[in-house]
């Protein structure tokens, strides 16, 4: 990774997703996300920077569970950015869609603009049980009531990894666990892969080059909306589907 500027991105292989929710928990603890109670879910106000959407397919007994992890797509052409009246969300030069907590005034326009439903509003002051207060991550701001929050691609980990690489005069390593977001590190099946689109040799670029070809599995979530996401998905390989002869 020799290039000066980065463009962080991710590949999510749906075929590898088992729906175990480890990424959700990892994100929750890495990013100081308050505990979501049942009532919060019922009010549609639960905060999950990464969530596993589950779909049932088919009739019993031939029913199939389909999972798709959804995070902020860090869109190159993000619908959330131009609507912010205070410039609290913008695209930085590393391809990240940044949410500046101290600028946000909580208009929630951005959440209305986002087609992926990955922006969350703090309807309450965040609370943790007494026993969990000492596990808060000091590198991440605890968001107070009245502001938006969203996936940051664990920018605190990126900052730390780049700083340490700079200190030791080494180059950032593709797939370094210190650089990867918490969800990527926690994925048991390596279904999430993080990397730099500007690095031609990065794992995500290799996958993209392979899967973008005719018959490849790559697609962008809701890409017909023109959001040009920085996250690409790989389709599930369905063994029972017609025309599939198995491996």
């Amino acid at each position, binding site marked *: 990774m020799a290039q000066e500027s980065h463009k962080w991105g991710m590949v999510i292989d749906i075929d590898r997703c088992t729906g175990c929710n480890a990424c959700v928990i990892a994100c929750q603890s890495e990013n100081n996300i308050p505990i979501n109670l049942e009532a919060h879910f019922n009010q549609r106000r639960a905060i999950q920077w990464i969530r596993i959407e589950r779909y049932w397919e088919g009739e019993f007994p031939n029913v199939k569970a389909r999972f798709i992890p959804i995070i902020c797509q860090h869109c190159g052409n993000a619908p959330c950015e131009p609507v912010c009246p205070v410039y609290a969300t913008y695209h*930085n030069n590393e391809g990240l869609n*940044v949410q*500046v907590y*101290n600028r946000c005034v909580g208009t929630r326009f951005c959440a209305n603009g986002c087609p992926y439903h990955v922006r969350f509003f703090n309807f309450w002051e965040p609370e943790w049980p007494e026993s969990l207060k000492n596990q808060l991550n000091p590198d*991440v*701001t605890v968001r107070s009531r009245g502001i938006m929050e969203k996936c940051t691609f664990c*920018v*605190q980990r990126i900052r730390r990894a780049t700083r340490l690489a*700079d200190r030791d005069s080494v180059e950032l390593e593709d797939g370094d666990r210190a650089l990867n977001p918490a969800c990527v590190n926690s994925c048991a099946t390596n279904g999430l892969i993080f990397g730099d689109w500007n690095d031609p040799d990065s794992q995500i670029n290799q996958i993209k080059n392979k899967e973008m070809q005719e018959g490849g599995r790559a697609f962008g979530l809701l890409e017909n909306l023109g959001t040009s996401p920085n996250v690409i998905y790989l389709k599930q390989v369905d063994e029972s589907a017609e025309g599939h002869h198995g491996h």
Partner: protein
Amino acid sequence: MLPGDFEFKRLKPSKKQMVLLSIAGFFGLLVFSGIVIVLTFVLTAWMNGQPIIFANEGPEQPIVFPHKKHVEELGMDCTFCHRGVDKEAAAHVPTTGLCMTCHSAVGDGLDGITKMRSLYEDDRSIHWIRVHRVPDHVHFVHEAHIRYFSEKEGVEASAVCSKCHGDVANMEEVHGTEDGRVKQVEPLKMGHCVDCHKQHNAPTDCATCHY
């Protein structure tokens, strides 16, 4: 006087009413000027980043710690006690254990030393009062700043510290008090950070510090 017009009866307050009115007016004026004075102090304090109203002495600490003695007279470097400063994000306030590397042998009979030793023996820490603090949504990393100035500009580590923390070693003289309290001399507001970042071509992207 046209027909249909009417003349207001001229109100003339009685003497008693006059007294009451003047008293009410006086107190009203007092309250108003009080608010103006308080607001002026609060606003100027906010703009300069100084503690509100005359209180820029620095807080009183549980132990009188003479920085001057350690730095000026004994020639110790900031990094000797604040060990994290060139390694990590936090500069670290030394533990009593670190104090004891020297003070198990030196400083007998001094009040502060006695207090520190008894805390050390009880496995307790000194509850220093924090002087420099940036808000929670700011992630300041000491290591990167020390490294930049010492590697790129050849400034000595302790000289880098004084860019933001002032001349801590000589703070007691400034006050003329004996208990050299450390005080905040720079505003440490975002403008202060951004000015310096611009001067040195450091990144000014929001997500450099705010995340």
